[in-house]
Every structure is written in structure tokens, then in C-alpha cells.
């Protein structure tokens, strides 16, 4: 088991960097490599990083096949309106999935694929289950849900063709400090809209728990989907109260206007977030312990509390003695 080669796609994102950080501490991981369009958010000690654009298929294939990983962890997905507009996000995610998973299929040593997915895959159409488990039918009703369904489908096709296991980690909305999330951004606005007549419950997951789950999936060679959701749930109005924001009750068509207004003010509400706030979004996390050997440390309510506790950037004094500081005169000289 020891000395395995692990390849992480999307290592430049907050979640990908955290996953790579945790994998570096895993005793079974021999060498670690990762790619992304952006550099990692934190210093990685053992990971070899390659900065490659998702549409550069040839370079991705070369990099992945040269590394010849045993385990591929694919977290290179772009949530709509998190770091990119929905159309761009969908295109980037598709390009990355095709390139990385396609390249992995060419690797002889590969025996396990772990993909980051989302509970949006179940959809919230009429008659959909309140708290779907992993066996529930997949009927995505949002752009993001369809995107993660496509990733799972692509990974399953690759796995079937080359005879490896594939595990999908279906995450609830990931929130955490500096994790770009349209839901987190919306809830931190001074005035937060909520659906006055329904205000349904939704669940989230903290970025640390999400990363731990992905690492556990890689460690255990997960070969099935698993829902990763923090225990408990919260409604938008409860979240607003906890964050001491101003609630803005909305009815029916007003929601469309609120979405446009929120977009202008810098917190766009993509359709999957809108769906969560109008139809709710829960999932059954009962199989986490059995499949991953872990449960989330942080409940949904605590994640929301942390969301409102994140400070803005705190600037500290430079750690340079006063005598060593360069005066403006010296600079000009």
C-alpha cells in the first residue's frame, strides 16, 4: 500500500490545496503531483505542481501519463459563480474532466479514481426525496447538478473501460475561509433575501471536512458514491438571524429581481443556490462512516457560525526590527 503515486487535479483551488496538504501527511502516499490553471493557495511541501490550462489536452496527457499515478483525485471542478461565470465554469469543468480522466485512462498503474461531485446531482424537482441517499435516482435540475452528473458519468465510463474503481464524493455546498462559494458570499451580504413562504432547510459542509472525506475516499479506494454532508440543517432565515443580517422576505417572482440585484452587487445567485433557498437541499450522510471511516467534525449550524466569524484580512506589523527598517530617504537614494 505504501509508496503509491497520487495525482490531484485542481490542486490550485482552496479545496484542492487542502486535499494535497492532507495527502502529504498520509503514510501510504509515496509521491504526489497536481495540476491546475492557478497556483496552489498554500505552500505544498511534497507536491509537484504543474500549471496547465484545462484546455491544453496534450500537456495534461503528457504530465499525467509521465507520472503514471495509482490514484487519481479529480477535484478540478468550477462551481458556477464561485470563481467563474456559469457558462465559463461549465466549459472549464468539462475540459478538465475530459483531459484529466482521459489522460488517466492511459496510465497502466491506475487502479482508483476519486471524483468530487455534489448533492445537487439528485435535483429538487417535484416529488424528489427530502433527504436522498446514494441510491436515489439522479435527476439534476440545475446547471451545477448536470455538470457533476456529467463528471460522474465520464469517470464511470473511463473506469469501466480500463477496469479501475471509481468513487464519487458528493459534497454539500462547501463553505470555509477563502473558499469561493456563491452561497457563502450571499449569506455574508448585509441584506440577505429569503423565501418568505417556504424558507426550506439546507445542509452544507466545511472545507476541512470535505477535504478529509476526499482523502479518506482515496485511502479506502472508494468504489461507490457517498454523500458528504454535515449533520443537521439550517434555513436561510435561521442563518440570517445567526449572522445578524437584515432579512429580506421575498414572494414568488420577486426572487428573480433579487437575483439580478444580487448579481449587480457582487454576489450572484446561480440556479443551484437559488434552488437550495427555495426548495431546500438535504442528503442522507448515513454511509459516510461505513465507506470513509469518518464523520464530519462540524455541524451545519457551526459551519454557518464560522461563516459569520471569518474576519476580514488582519494586517500584522512586519517582523523587522525598527533599526533595520529602511527609511524613505534610503529608498529614494
Amino acid at each position, binding site marked *: 500500500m505504501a509508496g503509491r503515486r497520487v495525482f490531484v487535479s485542481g490542486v490550485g483551488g482552496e479545496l484542492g490545496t487542502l486535499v494535497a496538504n492532507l495527502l502529504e501527511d498520509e503514510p501510504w502516499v509515496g509521491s504526489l503531483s497536481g495540476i491546475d490553471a492557478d497556483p496552489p493557495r498554500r505552500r505544498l511541501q511534497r507536491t509537484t505542481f504543474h500549471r496547465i490550462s484545462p484546455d491544453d489536452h496534450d500537456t495534461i496527457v503528457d504530465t499525467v501519463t509521465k507520472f503514471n499515478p495509482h490514484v487519481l483525485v479529480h477535484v478540478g471542478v468550477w462551481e458556477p459563480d464561485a470563481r467563474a461565470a456559469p457558462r465559463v465554469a461549465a466549459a472549464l469543468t468539462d475540459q478538465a474532466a475530459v483531459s484529466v480522466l482521459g489522460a488517466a485512462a492511459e496510465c497502466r498503474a491506475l487502479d482508483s479514481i476519486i471524483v468530487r461531485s455534489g448533492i445537487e446531482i439528485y435535483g429538487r424537482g417535484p416529488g424528489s426525496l*427530502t433527504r436522498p441517499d446514494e441510491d436515489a435516482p439522479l435527476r439534476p435540475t440545475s446547471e451545477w447538478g448536470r455538470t457533476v452528473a456529467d463528471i460522474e458519468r465520464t469517470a464511470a465510463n473511463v473506469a469501466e473501460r480500463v477496469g479501475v474503481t471509481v468513487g464519487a464524493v458528493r459534497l454539500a455546498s462547501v463553505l470555509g475561509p477563502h473558499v469561493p462559494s456563491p452561497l457563502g458570499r450571499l449569506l455574508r451580504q448585509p441584506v440577505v433575501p429569503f423565501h418568505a413562504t417556504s424558507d426550506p432547510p439546507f445542509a452544507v459542509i466545511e472545507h*476541512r471536512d470535505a477535504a478529509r472525506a476526499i482523502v479518506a475516499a482515496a485511502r479506502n479506494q472508494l468504489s461507490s458514491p457517498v454523500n458528504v454532508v454535515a449533520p443537521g440543517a439550517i434555513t436561510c432565515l435561521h442563518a440570517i438571524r445567526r449572522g445578524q443580517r437584515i432579512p429580506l422576505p421575498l414572494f414568488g417572482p420577486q426572487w428573480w429581481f433579487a437575483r439580478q440585484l444580487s448579481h449587480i452587487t457582487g454576489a450572484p445567485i446561480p440556479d443551484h443556490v437559488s434552488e437550495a433557498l427555495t426548495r431546500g437541499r438535504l442528503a442522507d450522510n448515513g454511509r459516510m462512516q461505513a465507506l470513509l471511516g469518518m464523520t464530519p467534525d462540524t455541524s451545519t449550524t457551526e459551519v454557518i457560525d464560522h461563516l459569520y466569524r*471569518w474576519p476580514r484580512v488582519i494586517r500584522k506589523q512586519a517582523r523587522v526590527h525598527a533599526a533595520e527598517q529602511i527609511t524613505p530617504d534610503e529608498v529614494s537614494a
Partner: protein
Amino acid sequence: MPAPNPSSNSPLGRVVDFPTKRAAAVASEGATVFHRVTDEPAGHVDNWGRDAGLFRTVTMLSEIRWSVSTGGDQRLPNRKGALIVVNARRFALAAVYSAFAISRAVDRPVRFVGRPDGGPVGALAQRLGGLLDHPDEVAGALRAGELVVCSASATTRPRDVGTIDHALIGAAIRSNVDVFPAATTSSPFGRRARIEIGDATRQRQRRRGPLAEVELADHVADDLTLLLTEMGDMTTGTPLDWLPLSGLGGN
């Protein structure tokens, strides 16, 4: 596993300080799971979207309408899930007031089956512990160790037991939990209502196929009828009780 502190080593960490230690300390306390309804704080929303504060308020208000006495609740499991099947009179909301009353008796959240999917009523019912009338939804709740109340189809006569949805019974069989019959009586004009939970209904013959759920549904209906007979009728104490086919007794 210790929580990583990314800001300690990186150059970014020297100028930007995130409260990772405090967050990790809070996280290490673990997520609170409330097993007793009375322990739940007002703002708590559970895994199924049941709002503890709203539930408490509505159950308190429901006592204006129904004064329910519950019997046989000691037969229910303490931790495990169970399906409770009640008989229902038309427009009596038997599953709802039964869920409220049993929840109060056992101090555990009790779900009821049959909330609408969507609209303000559906949202309100979900916040009170309502589940969709779907076998997979019921199976999920039972597997999660929840007590779930479902009702037979509503009838006009209080001693009749309507059709029991065998698909919901099948959910209980698949989830490996017991099915309890619970007889309910209530009056449209009075506050008094009663719930008597019987012993768990067992399969009398082992079946491997779907016949098991159909047979068990029939046995539950039989047990419910017996319980209703033992309970007697709800009376108003007025000459209305003498009228047959009134929906209030008179049998």
C-alpha cells in the same frame, strides 16, 4: 487527526492570520446530536428539516384543538426506528396529532408521512417533521433510526380501517424495523383524542418477495381493527352518540 494550520508556515500566513486554531477547537467539540426533543434549542433544525422551535410552538397550539392521551408508548424502541400505522377518520389529521402526541410521550422526534411537496403547507409540514408519501423517503428515515407515523387511508366511520399502503410497509421490512399498529379515536367536535399503540405486528410466514409487505399490511389492518374494538368508541356525551353512521359512534 490534528487540524492543519496552513498559516503557520506559508509566507501568506505571516501577514494574514485566519482563526484556524479557534475554528479547529470549536470543530473538535463535535457536532451535537439531540436525541431528546426537550433538549433541542429553539433554533435547531435537524437532518430532515424539522425546526425544534416551530415544532414546540405548534404542538403547544395543537393542544388547544386536541387533548390526546397516549397509551402503549413503552412498546416503542428507545433508539431504533419504527413505523407506526394509525387509522384515520376523514379530515381528522390523525397522523399529525398522533406524531405530536407520541413525540411528547417518548420525548423523541416523530415524523409523519404525507406532507405535500411544495407550497407553504409543504414547507410548514416539513418544518414540523413531515415526510413525503414515498417509500424511499420513509425507508431513509427508518434507516436513520426515526419513528415514523403513517396513516391508513381515511374513512368516514371511526371503527373502520382503510387501506394501508403496502409500499410503506415494504419500506419498514427493507429497513429491518418493526411495524406497530396504533388505534386513534377523536371527535370533530371535542378536544379529547386517544392513541393506543399495540404490540409490533410480526410476519406470520417468512416471504422473500413482495408478498411479505402485502401480508404484513393485512395483519397490521387486522391488529388495528382489534385495537379499535378494545378501545370502544369516542362519545360526545350527547344524543349524537345514538345516531348510527354519524362518524361519531353509534355502532
